[in-house]
């Protein structure tokens, strides 16, 4: 009997609000939470907007020690992790800790803290030989992002397989795919997974500035990210975290758990093309979609919704539109597509998990969140991108995709599970 991985708990820290409820309200209402950057003085930079989370660690119950010690992204993971644990209804301390795993996605880890400490130690870049006397005791935790999975593992009491999955902007999908593999192969019964990212710091902004990937619509930050719109001019960065409790199906059924859905298929592909460029044909993303569908024993025509990468760059829009058509054929034209980055920005290694959670909530509510800011659809993008307003639709099988620097292309098929409780 093959083992299946289902989602029984979710937790979110996102722009527009903390917690799953606030997140769903934003998505379902099609509002945007991108704004001018307030975390630091962004005036020297080309793109000065982001989807920022209004995150108060004290209000979220973190101790002063945790706040001092942990990078913001790790703080997100702890807070969203606690929400997901409680949402799952699992008594974590009653489980065999050796059967609990963690798989956490992040693209740039603790960059924000590393940069902050660099500025101090190098006296704003004056010295190549960074001064050791300014090093904070937990600097090594910022150095290697595995420290964040450690934090989440401590939060849930995991003693099974624990890892960070760091594949750039597909990390949030790939970490959940990795978690599903751990469950299916029998290495764990529960894996707490997801992605976290708090990349909003000068070096991250500049990374995207210098390659002109980010939007310059600084005067209109709330509508700056415009996937599939012909006036789009780039991505808007974001931050956030989604944590997902993934559980073996029979384990979940035995305790009568509410099941959001099943990770029925997952595949990743390298495009072997370019570290930042995408080939307009979308072959590798399409390959990933096909494999994920096959694994899920689903036909292209079963797909009721596509959660797009929708980063807001032209090359991405063309790339994924081509991939959807290549995989789904004529059915692609009948399938609603939407992109959440239009509302919450691109939180790099977290966004894939945020998109999974948003899609699961769409399952629950029979409502597909829209693509915000889509007023003038690019004629080269000729699918149904669900502009502006959420749409009621009952969906049993959906597809969510991601695409990232390094050439990573990932696809996941989520399915409703019969007899899912609650």
């Amino acid at each position, binding site marked *: 009997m093959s083992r299946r991985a289902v989602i029984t708990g979710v937790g979110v820290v996102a722009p527009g609000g903390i917690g799953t409820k606030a997140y769903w309200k934003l998505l379902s209402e099609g509002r945007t939470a991108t704004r001018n950057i307030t975390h630091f003085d962004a005036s020297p930079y080309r793109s000065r907007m982001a989807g920022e989370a209004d995150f108060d660690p004290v209000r979220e119950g973190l101790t002063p020690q945790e706040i001092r010690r942990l990078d913001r992204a790790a703080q997100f993971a702890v807070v969203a992790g606690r929400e997901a644990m409680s949402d799952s209804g699992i008594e974590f301390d009653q489980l065999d800790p050796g059967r609990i795993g963690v798989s956490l996605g992040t693209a740039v880890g603790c960059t924000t803290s590393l940069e902050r400490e660099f500025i101090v130690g190098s006296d704003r870049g004056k010295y190549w030989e960074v001064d050791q006397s300014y090093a904070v005791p937990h600097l090594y935790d910022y150095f290697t992002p595995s420290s964040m999975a450690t934090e989440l593992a401590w939060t849930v009491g995991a003693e099974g397989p624990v890892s960070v999955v760091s594949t750039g902007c597909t990390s949030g999908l790939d970490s959940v795919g990795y978690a599903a593999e751990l469950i299916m192969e029998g290495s764990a019964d529960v894996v707490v997974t997801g992605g976290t990212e708090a990349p909003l710091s000068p070096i991250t902004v500049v990374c995207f500035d210098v390659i002109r990937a980010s939007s310059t619509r600084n005067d209109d930050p709330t509508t700056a990210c415009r996937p599939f719109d012909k006036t789009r001019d780039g991505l808007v960065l974001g931050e956030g975290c989604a944590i997902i409790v993934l559980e073996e199906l029979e384990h979940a059924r035995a305790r009568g758990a509410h099941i959001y859905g099943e990770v029925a298929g997952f595949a990743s592909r390298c495009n072997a093309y370019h570290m930042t460029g995408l080939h307009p044909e979308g072959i590798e993303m399409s390959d990933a979609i096909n494999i994920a569908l096959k694994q899920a024993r689903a036909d292209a025509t079963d797909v009721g919704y596509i959660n797009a990468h929708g980063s807001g760059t032209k090359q991405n829009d063309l790339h994924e539109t081509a991939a959807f058509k290549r995989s789904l054929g004529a059915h692609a034209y009948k399938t609603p597509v939407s992109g959440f980055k239009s509302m919450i920005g691109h939180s790099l290694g977290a966004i894939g998990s945020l998109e999974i959670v948003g899609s699961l909530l769409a399952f629950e509510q029979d409502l597909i969140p829209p693509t915000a800011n889509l007023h003038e659809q690019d004629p080269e993008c000729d699918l149904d991108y669900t502009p502006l307003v959420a749409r009621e639709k009952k969906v049993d099988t959906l597809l969510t995709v991601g695409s990232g*620097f*390094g050439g990573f292309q990932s696809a996941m098929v989520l399915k409703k599970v019969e007899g899912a409780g609650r």
Partner: protein
Amino acid sequence: MTRAVVTGIGIASPNGLGPTAYWRATLHGEAAIKPITRFDSANYWAKIAGEVPGFEAGRHLQGRLLPQTDHMTRLTLVGTDWALRGAGVQPNDIPDTDIAVITAATAGGYEFGQRELQKLWHQGPEYVSAYQSFAWFYAVNTGQISIRHGTRGPGAVVVSEQAGGIDSIGHARRQLRKGVQLALTGGMDSSLCPWAWVAHQASGCLSRNNNPKRAYLPFDRDASGYVAGEGGAIMVVETPESAAGRPGTRIYGEIVGYAATFDSKMPSREPGLKRAAELALRDAGMDASEIDVVFADAAGIPELDKAEAEAIKGIFGPYGVPVTAPKTMTGRLFAGGGSLDVASAILSIYWSAIPPTVNVENVVPEYELDLVLNEARHGKIKAALVLGRGKGGYNSAMVVREYR
């Protein structure tokens, strides 16, 4: 169950570039921990490291790759080239979608990153390299390998500090089971720049002894921490059927068992290393008595050494199995070190010899370890257990065996 064999090994280690040079040096106990040359260490209390000598990236890589890559990516790309050449894989031998790339990282391209941070903060945003966005992040090596060799199969990057070097190979085996023919896998870490060095010093794990012969002494009563180094191993891991498609392909050994566990924060709970080793043995379907050598994690920190010695003793009994730590010659290489240990174990089997642990003089008697000291031990090796731990609680274990 799909089997996974190692057919190509690319090594960049402080004591040797390439599997032949590395193995010769390692069997002879040639230590390569030396005063740091890559930056001026005068202002840092830790002054020694394992640096990969004589590596001229420009001799191996096209000029256009140099401005867009950190040192660790260059080592990775060259290591991958060697592994593929050793395995005799030619372009188009294997469908491009049937090749996976699974690497491990501990740090990103931090030397590159420090340079760009310095430009940003000292000169201004317009001076930052267009390559910064990907040259320093943790996914860079998988992406660059895939582009260099045109591989269009699955790609992944795992981060679990030193244990990640083992986890990446475990994940590669998973990909073979899911249907790919061949995986390029392993890790290379290099973070020998001032910014990264300050972080290493802050870990609390580096030895404060700057005598290269006395700094890194795992299991010794004078253990005082470890020495950091750079390098690692990239391997070609494939199915036997795939290897058979290229007649004459040398099979170094087989990966037969793997498991990962995590240490609880609660001191009342037993550390997970022993459990990882037991699970890996179970995964291999093998008994402890079939293991001929253990490649230890060898943290060089007394509490961690004690915990590892107890785990080994718990499984094999007192002095129950030869244990070695060739990383005493190179320093700890983080994700690269986990992979290099697996490569060493595979080479041990292939060449019927256990490389020694160097510099250790006084093994703590209570550990009851049969540590292979100073001289290689020759004789048939059928199977080896590799242990790796990552800071923060990570434990991984891998069982490798001669291929029959």
